[in-house]
């Protein structure tokens, strides 16, 4: 039987050595990891805004596509664009605007909220008219594979495309995920998409947080709509 002192010294040495090893690894890999995370976010923003990406693209290619076409800016709750200096304030929201040949082709906003098992994170894209849906993606969620995780599937995401965010009076109604199918005779079918069978709670959660997030951007989006109207006159 070894002495207690030996046990303590041995344990201490092992802990220190392992701890040192871990911190060296974590520190030396941190830069690469954060590059990966940023790139993943950029990929998501590009794809929700309708840029088709190929999975074998080099990182630089995605990076340059992003830099050429995406313009990030921050708006506050009244819808005015802020310079980045004020971005420490919590009541401001990031918008990713895509441009091609100096023409705005869409707006993407981050969305997040509770699904069934945990928080779902994604992006929601809106056409330049600021009222038609351009796309939706999710990059992180914990929904059940085969049920709630169908939100990742094309059939579900494509249903959003072309839906309207505002009614004829110009007030925000967002897009609702219904239970079952949207009937074609429903006068509000422009604001509804088919639900996923077996994933009612995922759909309800999505309906709620989508509306919630859109409300934050509504002041800015309504300004865009007014500007569009003036321009078209």
């Amino acid at each position, binding site marked *: 039987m070894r002495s207690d002192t030996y046990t303590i010294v*041995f344990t201490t040495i092992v802990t220190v050595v392992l701890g040192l090893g871990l911190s060296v690894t974590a520190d030396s890999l941190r830069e690469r990891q954060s590059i990966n995370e940023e790139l993943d976010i950029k990929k998501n923003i590009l794809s929700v805004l309708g840029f088709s990406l190929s999975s074998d693209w080099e990182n630089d290619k995605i990076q340059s596509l992003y830099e050429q076409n995406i313009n990030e800016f921050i708006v506050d709750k009244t819808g005015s664009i802020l310079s980045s200096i004020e971005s420490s304030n919590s009541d401001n929201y990031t918008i990713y605007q895509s441009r091609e040949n100096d023409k705005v082709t869409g707006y993407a906003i981050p969305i997040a909220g509770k699904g069934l098992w945990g928080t779902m994170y994604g992006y929601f894209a809106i056409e330049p008219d600021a009222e038609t849906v351009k796309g939706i993606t999710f990059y992180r969620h914990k929904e059940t594979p085969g049920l709630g995780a169908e939100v990742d599937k094309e059939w579900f995401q494509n249903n959003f495309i072309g839906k309207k965010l505002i009614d004829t009076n110009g007030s925000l109604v967002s897009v609702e995920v219904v239970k079952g199918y949207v009937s074609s005779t429903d006068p509000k079918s422009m604001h509804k998409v088919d639900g996923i069978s077996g994933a009612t709670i995922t759909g309800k959660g999505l309906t709620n947080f989508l509306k919630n997030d859109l409300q934050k951007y509504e002041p800015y989006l309504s300004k865009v709509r007014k500007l569009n109207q003036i321009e078209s006159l």
Partner: protein
Amino acid sequence: MGENPISIHVLGICSALAITTKIDTAVVMTIAVVAVLSISNVVISLLRNNIPNKVRIIIQMSVIASLVIIADQVLKAYMYDMSKLLGVFLGLIITNCIVLGRAEAYAMQNSPSKALLDGMGNGLGYGTILIAVAFFRELFGFGSIYGAQVITNQIYLGGYENNGLMILSPGAFFILGLIVWAHRAYTETSDKD
């Protein structure tokens, strides 16, 4: 053959269910487990004459946990998409009883070279079953093998549908059960020879 950790000792079932919906995740998981298991076995074996008996499990756990964290970090840096797919299960190698089991049962008594072989053998045995389960789940659940679509559109148009059950955990239970049954039936008969 008679000592496979999953089919004979029924260890590591949790991860076998979780990451076997596609073959590529199963392959990466296998590589991670082989690496962690081999290195942890060698480290424990090198320390085996110095580890105080009272705290040996804690020491083993710390070595394993550190290796798993390193594996997780490396994957995040070099295979980001894969680490997103494996998610929490890579971290859960720590709780995979195979790793601690081999450290306690084998590496504590044997030389580093033997422990290395034991770790690799057990890791590969675990991986074989993972990949076998993933093969069937991917084939019947997605109609593909290692990402390549083998069930063509014509078959789908003919009324064939992917089996959703295969993607969910019960599908893995059924396949794992069948594999364990087949393996045990086979080893039993070969024992009698």
